[in-house]
């Protein structure tokens, strides 16, 4: 039987019931959501029973607007034989961002999870070597989260006024210390 999205959805609901939610097909790719405790079970089921043996992509997204479900880990899987792709997400709160590691199934998840940890702070339980990969080891925050800015905050040489950030737009009406600048009478 050809592997269609309806068949996959049917097999998944047979196996996991209604714990898998939000089945959608945006732009031609099946996408669903799983609770974070089940992520390895779902992947293992897809690996063994349905032939999704290739982990295309593993990444994380930060949704500060969803309370209790701020960090999402998104897996893209690919069945090379039948040429079918799907995506599933697990959500985890930012206070306790523990997600089971996918390295038990796929070796390619190793560095991708380190990258998700480095950028978002998702703690992958059972990962062999969870440390920062892209940024310097001494960095103490997770830069891709929405609350942190893009630019380096320790720069002093950039003229913020020209970039519309900080500074003052008074165009010469103020001195360096903020006091209003007056023109001496003889220069008027």
């Amino acid at each position: 039987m050809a592997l269609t999205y309806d068949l996959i959805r049917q097999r998944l609901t047979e196996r996991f019931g209604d714990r898998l939610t939000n089945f959608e097909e945006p732009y031609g790719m099946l996408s669903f959501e799983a609770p974070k405790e089940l992520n390895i079970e779902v992947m293992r089921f897809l690996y063994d029973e349905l032939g999704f043996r290739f982990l295309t992509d593993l990444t994380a997204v930060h949704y500060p607007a969803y309370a209790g479900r701020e960090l999402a880990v998104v897996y893209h899987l690919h069945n090379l034989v039948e040429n079918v792709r799907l995506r599933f997400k697990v959500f985890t709160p930012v206070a306790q961002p523990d997600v089971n590691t996918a390295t038990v199934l796929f070796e390619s998840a190793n560095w991708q999870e380190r990258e998700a940890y480095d950028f978002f702070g998702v703690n992958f339980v059972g990962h062999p070597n969870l440390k920062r990969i892209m940024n310097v080891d001494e960095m103490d925050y997770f830069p891709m989260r929405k609350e942190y800015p893009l630019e380096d905050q320790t720069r002093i040489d950039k003229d913020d006024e020209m970039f519309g950030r900080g500074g003052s737009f008074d165009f010469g009406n103020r001195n360096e210390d903020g006091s209003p600048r007056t023109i001496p009478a003889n220069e008027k």
Partner: protein
Amino acid sequence: MARPVSFNIKEKPLEKDISIASMPDGHQGEGFFATKLSDVVGLARRNSIWPLPFATSCCGIEFMATMASHYDLSRFGSERLGFSPRQCDLLMVMGTIAKKMAPVVKQVYLQMAEPRWVMAVGACACSGGIFDSYSVLQGIDQVVPVDVYVPGCPPRPEAIIDGIMRIQDLVGKESIRRRNSEHYKNLLNSYGIQ
């Protein structure tokens, strides 16, 4: 649609088969030639610069094109590219330097022997380029003193050659005592290099 302007459509004949570096100014007589030591040393140094290509990203590929036969860099004396800083004169930093890489640049600079020159090739090495982000060093002159900046993203090979020619000017006109002068020592101290 035909192009309105065409450049270089007439082939220019070669003036001479071989071009030789010109003689420095000096006093000549029967069997002797007197000139300044700095001129002679400068002449020798400027036509045999050994660069260290510290190529990190896209500018490195333009450098590979500069080294290739179309825009040959070895015409300027840089036939031998060294990858060991102990043996090179010119540190060409080509490409973005991230904050993780900055200590490596500094270490390579420290391992070079005097006289040494630094060329920042590309917008990222000059000033951080288009990457104004938390992880990119905004210009390598935050960690090492730079002699020539070549802007561009990436600079055309002609621009890199122009940078090399300016380095050649600097090398040719450098005074003998520059590396021991107060000014130079203060410059290095401002970078924390003794």
